[in-house]
């Protein structure tokens, strides 16, 4: 069924594909995920605290980003930023776009998680003499983050696969690398199946990390 040459191709290409997965795909997703999570906390807090003007600005940001395709955003950044005099390498550009894109979605996740923390927690914080930011830091955000964690990780897993879109702005990541190898050998299907398997392996590992993370964050004795 499988020809000898195909098997050899799969074996020889596996390390090359994996290399770009570890060197480009995972770093792109991980860096963008961390930055977007930080961004989302700010955007969510602005809305939670109902800061005038800034709040409207955040809603506008979320509206624009959620209402346009990621692929289009990548293109706009790729062709638009140089016009503004901003020249950077495609990888960095991809990190920025993925961060901004993911930040909009995660901000809604974080806001919902913060609003799910009971109002009494804030009141109790005030009553022992803490200020708003202290209560945020010690009480609200840790509880909200615990609630949001599975959803945020969902987004990370989603983003690992979406990084393949970065190929459209000349980032050579795992999928682009696979396409190159396939193009040289004219043997497409086996290689695309192979790269699918590598994505699957990545996401399996991430799913495991999510489980460990949830345990690490603790459930405050609620579920044991």
């Amino acid at each position: 069924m499988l020809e000898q040459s195909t098997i050899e191709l799969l074996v020889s290409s596996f390390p090359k594909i994996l290399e770009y997965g570890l060197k480009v795909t995972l770093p792109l997703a991980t860096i963008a995920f961390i930055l977007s999570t930080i961004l989302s906390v700010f955007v969510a807090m602005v809305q939670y605290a109902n800061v005038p003007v800034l709040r409207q600005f955040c809603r506008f940001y979320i509206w624009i980003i959620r209402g346009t395709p990621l692929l289009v955003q990548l293109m706009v950044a790729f062709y638009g930023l140089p016009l503004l005099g901003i020249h950077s390498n495609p990888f960095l550009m991809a990190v920025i776009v993925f961060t901004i894109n993911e930040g909009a979605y995660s901000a809604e996740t974080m806001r919902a998680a913060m609003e799910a923390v009971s109002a009494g927690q804030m009141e109790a914080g005030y009553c022992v003499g803490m200020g708003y930011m202290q209560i945020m830091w010690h009480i609200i955000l840790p509880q909200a983050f615990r609630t949001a964690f599975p959803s945020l990780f969902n987004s990370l897993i989603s983003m690992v696969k979406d990084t393949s879109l970065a190929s459209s702005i000349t980032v050579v990541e795992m999928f682009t690398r696979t396409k190159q190898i396939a193009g040289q050998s004219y043997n497409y299907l086996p290689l695309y199946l192979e790269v699918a398997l590598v994505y699957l392996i990545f996401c399996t590992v991430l799913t495991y990390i999510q489980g460990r993370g949830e345990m690490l964050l603790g459930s405050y004795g609620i579920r044991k």
Partner: protein
Amino acid sequence: MSLLEVKNIHKTFGTTQVLRGIDLKIEKGDVVSILGPSGSGKTTLLRCINFLEKADNGELIFDGKSYDLSKISKAEISGIRNNTGFVFQNYNLFANKTVLQNVTLGLTAARHIPHKEADMKAYEVLSRVGMKDHASAYPSQLSGGQQQRVAIARALATNPKIIYFDEPTSALDPQLTAEVLEVMRGLAEDGMTMIVVTHEIGFAKDVSSKVVFMADGGIIEEGNSNEFFDNPKQPRTREFLRLTNS
């Protein structure tokens, strides 16, 4: 001089007037029970006094300083709160913190007291409410009565001049109610100044020095505990006491 005095507090929610001009005077060492039917404004009064609700107008005199409730500043609010404690009906312990951390957070975060010192203070107040052995437990692992005792310890830890209790036993069964009331009785005997919004007529009778009876957003009758129960003057009060079998 009174420790706490409120004058002419008004509060409306939408078009509903919840407080219609309340005057109240609390002396140091007083244990004041606020009784009254549901919807009479007891809880709102307590929340206004500790700024969890913003009163429409009125005056608050705390520890010799006078504040206009309609335009009190954040700094003034936090200055007053640093000298008060609050115990909620549904405990509101910090869900992500252990019992010990619940008690110390007001000391370490809000008052910048070193952790070691805060822990010592926390163990002291936790043993006072009989919860020292549960210091490392999370609130969700405790019974309602235990949670409320921790909440009392949390309020005590900051050495408040007065503690407000908002229906502290309303969410508890009779046995757990008894254990919480026992702790409160202890505080009263130690001279702690307390305002207690409660439905526990027995507690009001035995422990409190003063009773305030509220209905429809106003104070109907107030007086020292014995007088209030033995010789209620207002028809409204008599009716309430008859209905509650006391």
